[in-house]
């Protein structure tokens, strides 16, 4: 059985990684070949995950010896298997989408496909990596392949900038991981000295509380935080997700950033006694990321940037769950730990489904209209009904509204927070609750804006008016993902055993508590059905033929000028919220000055820069570069100066030796 699991996993990795190869040699149909291979790989991966989650036990495989070190190691345990599910599903959906979205006509389509498959292959290896070198190999492979994906449209300077910021951030994070793994290895480190210290082995009790343990945790947090997009390390994410082709954004946001979470999850799983402050820090960071993520999302008018900020928000939600679970694990309350971890894990899966869906939907919109600017869209619900419906499902789910999947995971995290009231310092619970509630309301506001402005009302530009529904290849993956969102929301019990097993592995409880029993997931299913039935019934009743007349314009309170540009815009929709959050968001506005009695045409512009990237990182680096530029004279071309260096070095070293 375990052999089969490993074989399936390797199959999955190879099929996906090599999916772009046939396309290099085929004149046409490379995309389709890639999609088939990715699909086959996804099935293999799902099968492997299913076997492990059904209780087949962790499957392990020793890889070849890495140079001068211990052997590489793959191990598919329930946690890895749980992460394998989105890793298998989403890229396959994206590959199918790519057939329609990024056809042979695009410059570099073949490279993109090749790297897309490669990224997926690395992702598959990553979820099963159980050794620092294997992990880092897959990690950087994924990151670098992802960089090339982001750079797909590198003729655009904005894309180049986005790609570079991404690469810089991911590599900085990786170097933090170097340090963290380095500290974790060896005697006194979290992973101990076995196998060179690079094998993921459970930490001995007490190690996490040492200062070295603390430093290790913080370095892991920063390293994984860069990838996951935890505020304030999120800054690479909006430009990169905005610039990448949409099916790439979809896996970037859906699974790649989740690998940061995977790293944190692995760490928490390996530490039997995490200190309380680990959990508390995670909760605080979660609340921060969640609130700021959604607040900045609200202020965006680029569809994909907006979705990217929502990824930061959802990472925040996941961290809240992870933090609460860690608090539970630290304080010895298995129920709390289980609920928090289960919520976090389920939200990882859910977010990958609905955010993948939303990015594909955004891709369809971009494909059909050529614009990502919300203010130039509108009315697409008429011309692209399928995309609109799918996008609505995604929006519904990401707002955490019942009966879709987003609700289930948020519900688990809420429950954990409520449970925490009894066990923990209630401040953490209250913080989590207030943050979750506010995030939920802000997300709903934001997606009301997005759906309303993009798909409803009427087209605000000629491009939007000319839009047509996208091809089947693009619709099908959206449909699949939307169905998954609905299915998981309506019947969370289906995944409950798997979830419980993964959460138990994370919590370190030997007996997987019956999550379905604790969390009453079945009631959610039971209520979802009447809710949906009732809604459909009432809808049918209200739209009964003959009960209405159509073809009239909207009643606009007497203003008959039928101008689509007079519709409420995304900016105006968000204006009051952005205005009340302006001390956080710090928008840059250019308001027109109206002086004369009959002013001419005036423009109004507003832009909310990313606080970290545009106000700290970039100016900071610019300043540093200019500061270092002053030192250029040291290499000023004069041989005398150079010889002087040698003399000075010699004299200094001699004096140091004598001293």
């Amino acid at each position, binding site marked *: 059985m375990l052999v089969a699991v490993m074989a399936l996993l390797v199959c999955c990795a190879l099929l996906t990684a090599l999916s772009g190869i046939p396309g290099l040699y085929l004149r046409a149909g490379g995309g389709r070949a890639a999609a088939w291979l990715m699909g086959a790989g996804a099935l293999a991966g799902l099968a492997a995950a299913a076997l492990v989650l059904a209780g087949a036990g962790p499957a392990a495989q020793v890889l070849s010896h890495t140079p001068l070190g211990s052997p590489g190691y793959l191990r598919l345990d329930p946690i890895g298997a749980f992460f394998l599910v989105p890793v298998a599903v989403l890229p396959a959906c994206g590959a199918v989408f790519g057939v329609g979205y990024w056809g042979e006509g695009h410059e570099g389509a073949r490279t993109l496909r090749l790297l897309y498959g490669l990224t997926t292959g690395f992702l598959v290896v990553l979820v099963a990596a159980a050794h620092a070198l294997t992990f880092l*190999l897959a990690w950087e492979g994924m990151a670098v392949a992802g960089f090339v994906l982001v750079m797909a449209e590198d003729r655009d300077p904005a894309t180049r900038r986005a790609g570079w910021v991404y690469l*810089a951030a991911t590599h900085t994070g990786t170097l*933090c991981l170097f340090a963290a793994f*380095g500290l974790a290895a060896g005697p006194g480190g979290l992973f101990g000295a076995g196998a060179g210290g690079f094998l993921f082995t459970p930490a001995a009790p007490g190690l996490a509380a040492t200062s070295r343990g603390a430093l290790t945790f913080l370095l892991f947090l920063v390293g994984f935080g860069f990838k996951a997009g935890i505020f304030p390390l999120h800054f690479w994410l909006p430009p990169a997700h905005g610039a990448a082709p949409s099916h790439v954004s979809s896996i970037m946001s859906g699974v790649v950033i989740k690998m940061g979470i995977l790293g944190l999850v692995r760490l928490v799983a390996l530490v039997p006694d995490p200190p309380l402050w680990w959990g508390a820090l995670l909760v605080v960071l979660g609340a921060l990321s969640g609130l700021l993520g959604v607040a900045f999302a609200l202020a965006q008018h680029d569809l994909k940037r907006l979705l990217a900020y929502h990824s930061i928000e959802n990472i925040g939600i996941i961290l809240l769950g992870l933090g609460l679970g860690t608090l539970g694990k630290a304080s010895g309350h298995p129920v709390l730990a289980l609920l928090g971890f289960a919520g976090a894990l389920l939200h990882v899966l859910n977010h990958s489904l609905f955010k993948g869906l939303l990015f594909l939907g955004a891709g369809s919109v971009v494909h059909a209209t050529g614009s990502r600017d919300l203010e130039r869209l509108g009315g697409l619900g008429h011309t692209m009904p399928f995309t609109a419906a799918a996008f609505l499902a995604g929006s519904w789910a990401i707002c955490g509204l019942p009966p879709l999947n987003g609700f289930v995971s948020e519900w688990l995290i809420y429950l954990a927070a409520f449970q925490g009231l009894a066990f923990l310092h209630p401040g953490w619970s209250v913080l989590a609750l207030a943050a979750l509630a506010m995030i939920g309301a802000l997300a709903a506001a934001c997606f009301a804006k997005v759906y309303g402005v993009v798909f409803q009302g009427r087209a605000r530009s000629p491009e939007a008016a000319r839009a047509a529904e996208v091809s089947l290849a693009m619709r099908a993956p959206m449909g699949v993902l939307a169905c998954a969102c609905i299915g998981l929301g309506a019947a969370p019990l289906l995944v409950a055993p798997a979830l419980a097993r993964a959460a138990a592995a994370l919590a370190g409880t030997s007996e997987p508590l019956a999550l379905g029993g604790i969390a009453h997931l079945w009631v959610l299913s039971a209520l979802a059905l009447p809710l949906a039935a009732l809604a459909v019934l009432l809808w049918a009743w209200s739209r009964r033929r003959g009960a209405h007349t159509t073809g009239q314009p909207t009643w606009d309170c007497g203003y008959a000028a039928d101008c689509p540009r007079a519709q409420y815009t995304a900016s105006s929709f968000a204006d009051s919220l952005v205005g009340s959050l302006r001390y956080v968001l710090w928008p840059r506005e250019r308001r027109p000055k109206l002086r004369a009695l009959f002013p001419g045409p005036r423009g109004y512009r507003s832009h909310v820069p990313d606080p970290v990237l545009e106000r700290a990182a970039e100016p900071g680096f610019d300043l540093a*570069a200019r500061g270092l530029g002053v030192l250029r004279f*040291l290499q000023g071309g004069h041989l005398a100066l150079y*010889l002087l260096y*040698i003399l000075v070095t010699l004299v200094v070293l001699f004096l140091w030796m004598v001293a």
Partner: protein
Amino acid sequence: MAWFLIAFPLLAAVLAFAKASGRFRVRLLPVTGALHLAALVLALVLGRYAQSGVEAWLGLDPLGSWGLLVISVLFCICACYAPAYLALRPERDNRVFTASFLAFLGLASLLAMAHHPGLVWVAMETTTLATAPLIYFNHNRRSIEATWKYLIIGSVGIALALLGTLFLAYAAKLGGLEEPLFFTRLMERGASLSRPWLRAGFVLALVGYGTKMGLAPLHTWKPDAYGESPGVIGALLAGGVTTCAFLALLRIFAVMAAAGELAFARKLMLGMGLLSMLWAAVFMVRQLDIRRLLAYSSVEHMGILAFGIGVGGRAVVFALFHLAANALVKGVLFMSAGNINRSYASKRLPYVTGAIRRTPVSGWLFFLGFLAITGTPPFAPFISEFNIAAAALARPSLWAGAAFLVLLAGIFLAMGDTVVQVVFGTPPADRVRTPYRDTLATTAPLLVALGLAVTLGLWLPAPVGAMIHSAANLVEGQP
């Protein structure tokens, strides 16, 4: 065998210098490289290196074998690339070029196999002189300036190294040793050597060989020499000459270690290593000239080597491994940068952009080389940089490891900024395009080098691993 490895390339050099036919000379390069490599591998496989007589002047000990293996492989790759390059430069006579090129291999073999400090020094000196004409290949004002600086700075360095060698000899004299002062004997009798002289000698050797190696702030000739010579020469200098100097330094380091001065020597290496990385980082920021960028990267990697030795223990193994990793990847970088230059007739931003469009293979190779050299898996430098960092964090101190990683991050940011601009984007429309196109001849050697770098990142033949381990023991003073 030892004599063959040294004499064969030198004979080839003489032949190349004497023989009139340019075509013959060009063909001689890959043939010599391949034969040398084959002979070396044969010698290693036959196990002739295991202490071929303690009292011999020449021989393949683990350290020398490993260094020579790296040099020979790199030479082979460069020699396979050189004919294609020379074909692109029909206007330049290649007599001196080929002769110097071949002579370098012979002298490097001498250096790697020499068991005597004086002999090592002689080999280093002659290597410097043999490579000077290579830097001057372009015969213009810029290349003459570079050559002059290389020669003066290199000569001063080598003079200091000589003084250091003499100090070492004096230390031995005070310890009662007599000629011939083979390294093995110096190490065996390490405890009796005069400590003050030994220390002073090591400082001089560090400054002297460090100048040849390019440790900051002694590296100042590097950007000019690498920037103005052909790409293939940059590769040979950055991977070959530096390896020679590093080997020479390690020999003396080993004596220090055997004499019980390990802590002192380590501190110096650590400090110089970090300083080199810092200097490189500062000058890579907004570096518009890609060749100078690579030169500073070379300074950085010399710093990493020194740092690894300074950290000691496990890190020494990986510093030695890094020797190969750096040489291979630097080869890819310099030669692909050379190809890109050739296509754009410039090596500076903002003229060189969109390399993946104009020279797709070289552009991608350059980019991959950048990733590799900055420590991205699965390339070999990842293994060494990660392990050196991990070892440094554990010992000597957290701060050394932290400084190492912070500098690596800074260097990545600085280097990547330029590389991304060079590789991606659109080639400038208003610049003339030279007739250069990527061909198999100008890219295949690079692909091989990169392939080797990947292979080393994933797998190392066990005998080679054992060789590196025993070389590391040797460096740490346990023969």
